[in-house]
């Protein structure tokens, strides 16, 4: 991907040609098959795609938390603040987890250990990474719980996860993830399992805390374009284990380049428009992870495919400044700055 940037912001994370495969009954499922993207410091990047597109596996690969067996990281580089995470020793990587990069998961109901109090689970990471005393860790934990809006935090510290509602548990998860002021927060579908009213609150809370705590960047993984529109600066669209399009949010919504992104956007219900006879959808279904086609991953469902799409995989090309797209039919505009990878 482009190495120079017009805006001149520092890059926090660069993922290059990341490939994570799984063994599925003797066959190799290429869940993530050459993912490239980068994140600026202090940025909110949305990673969008249908289920099975490889979003969560990308996140877990960055953390090196792919369960092995059956999965493994075949190749790729993940440069985080200058260090390639893939080359660190196990213990060096462990020191980064939780402290520099932390993660929130989709299921708040199961992501916390049911037999330990949330106070225990909040303080253990603090004591581990910062060598805090029990007392200091408790104070910090209470402070974080108050910050995420848990009422009566000092008393609830020793409550167990089952005594909290789903939304409250996700708040606890956020408190836990941000208690060590990481540089990067990976939020894997943090609002998907919650009620719609709670979703907005949690999203707002995350962005609010990002402002308060300072320089935490957020990688927001979601399949919900409304969430992206609300909270992200830039969006990366994933399909078939590859990034298909990256652009600033306004530009992606205004001028989507990739046929898949266009399909995603037209399949959104639009209450402001006149009611159409039928909601538009992308034809076909996502192919099984085991048999994605050769060539462009999307051609089986693409409305504008040509012969070349079936055999040659397109490159991720900067079609206009800060806007990359992986499609044979989308050529760089006349802008001289645009160049291929």
């Amino acid at each position, binding site marked *: 991907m482009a190495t120079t940037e017009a805006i001149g912001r520092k890059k926090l994370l660069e993922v290059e040609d990341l490939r994570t495969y799984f063994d599925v009954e003797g066959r190799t499922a290429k869940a993530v098959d050459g993912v490239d993207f980068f994140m600026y410091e202090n940025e909110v990047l949305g990673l969008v795609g249908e289920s099975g597109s490889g979003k969560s596996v990308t996140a877990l690969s960055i*953390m090196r*938390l792919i*369960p092995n*067996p059956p999965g493994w990281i075949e190749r790729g580089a993940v440069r985080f603040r200058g260090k390639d995470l893939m080359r660190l020793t196990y213990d060096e990587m*462990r*020191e*980064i*987890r*939780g*402290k520099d990069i*932390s*993660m929130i*998961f989709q*299921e708040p109901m*199961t*992501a*916390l*250990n*049911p*037999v*330990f*109090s949330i106070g225990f689970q909040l303080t*253990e*990471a603090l004591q*581990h*990474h910062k060598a805090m005393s029990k007392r200091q860790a408790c104070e910090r934990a209470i402070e974080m719980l108050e910050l995420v809006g848990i009422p009566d935090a000092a008393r609830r510290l020793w409550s*167990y996860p*089952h005594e909290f509602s789903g939304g409250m548990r996700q708040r606890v*998860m956020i408190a*836990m993830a941000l208690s060590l002021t990481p540089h990067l927060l990976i939020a894997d579908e943090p609002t998907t399992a919650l009620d719609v009213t709670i979703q907005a609150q949690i999203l707002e809370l995350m962005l609010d805390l990002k402002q308060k705590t300072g320089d935490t960047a957020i990688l927001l993984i979601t399949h919900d374009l409304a969430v992206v529109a609300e909270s992200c600066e830039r969006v990366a669209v994933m399909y078939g284990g590859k990034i298909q399009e990256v652009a600033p949010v306004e530009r992606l919504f205004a001028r989507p380049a990739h046929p898949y992104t266009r399909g995603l956007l037209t399949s959104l219900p639009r209450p402001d428009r006149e009611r159409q006879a039928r909601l538009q959808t992308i034809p076909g279904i996502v192919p099984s992870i085991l048999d994605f086609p050769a060539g462009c991953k999307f051609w089986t469902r693409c409305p504008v495919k040509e012969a070349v799409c079936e055999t040659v995989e397109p490159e991720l090309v900067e079609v206009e400044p800060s806007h990359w797209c992986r499609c044979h039919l989308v050529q760089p505009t006349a802008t001289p700055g645009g160049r291929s990878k």
Partner: protein
Amino acid sequence: MHGMTSYFIRRMLLIPVTFVCITFMVYGIMRLAPGGPIEQARTQLLMAMQEGGGSLATSATGELDLPQEAIEQLKVYYKLHRSIPVGYLIWLGVWPDDDRQGEFNGVVQGDLGMSYRYSEPVLTTIVSKFPISITFGLIGYLATWIVCIPLGVKKALTHRSWFDTTSSLVVFLGYSIPGFVACLALLLMFGTSLVWDIFPLGGFRSENWNEMWEAGNFWWCVRDQAHHMVIPIIGYVMSGFATMTILMKNSLLDNLGADYVRTAFAKGLTERRVIFLHALRNSMIPLCVSIGHAIGLLFAGSFLIEKTCNIPGMGLLGFNSLVERDYPVLMGILVFGVLIRLLGNILSDVILALVDPRVRFE
């Protein structure tokens, strides 16, 4: 916690009800079953008289039989002369016993009656055997934990490795060999000169154990006791070995795949802490709950292992009492067995409430 207390009080109050139902049923079945002490006595007497050729009473059908008065006397002697409900209530101690000046003498008063066979109070008989079974049961159960927990954990952590596969083979072999058969094989191999004669051929202690104890040979006694216990304990461990190992392995494996384990790893905790604190703590829950149920089994002893290894414990006592229709002893064993099992079930619930904060009994 208030709701929990009342839950457990209610559970305790149900114990007497269950107890009465079970003991009444067993009492009734026992009284109705053929081959009771009177029939046994009759057969014995008849055989003796036939051999002696003495004068005989003749029943209405012309067959040889005891005089009616003798049968009635026997019935009174064995306390079988009352109807089943009245007999039961007297046994229970809530109905006056005419034979003893209308006193109440039963379970409620702590009187389990006299053993037909040993001619001593049932309570004395049971109390003399009880420590033996409990010793073997407890040590066997502890040994099972000590062997199975680490093995199950190791198997879960090395799932599908050669270690896991080979040990599974051993586990299933152990599952298919009953404990007493293993004891028999071990006694043959190591109790006789067949392979290596290093263990005694059964028995609870050496015959001169009590003398040595009084002589103050403490270490000799301990060694002798341990020496006799090795083979039976192996038998006890074999009985629960497979189930507990596989339970431990599967439980840990389930928890290692749980979301909260991923969260713990994502926090940067060490693998050791994630596995041995977070996952293991959760996977021990089903095993802890099984403790309460196991207690009932500890009391009962294993009749087959006791028989094979010639240990005079509860299992053997129960079996002999059954064969010889020693009803008071059988009922006495039942009293203890039922009470311990019922309390064990409640204990399981208490343990579950202690180890799993999610559980709240209302």
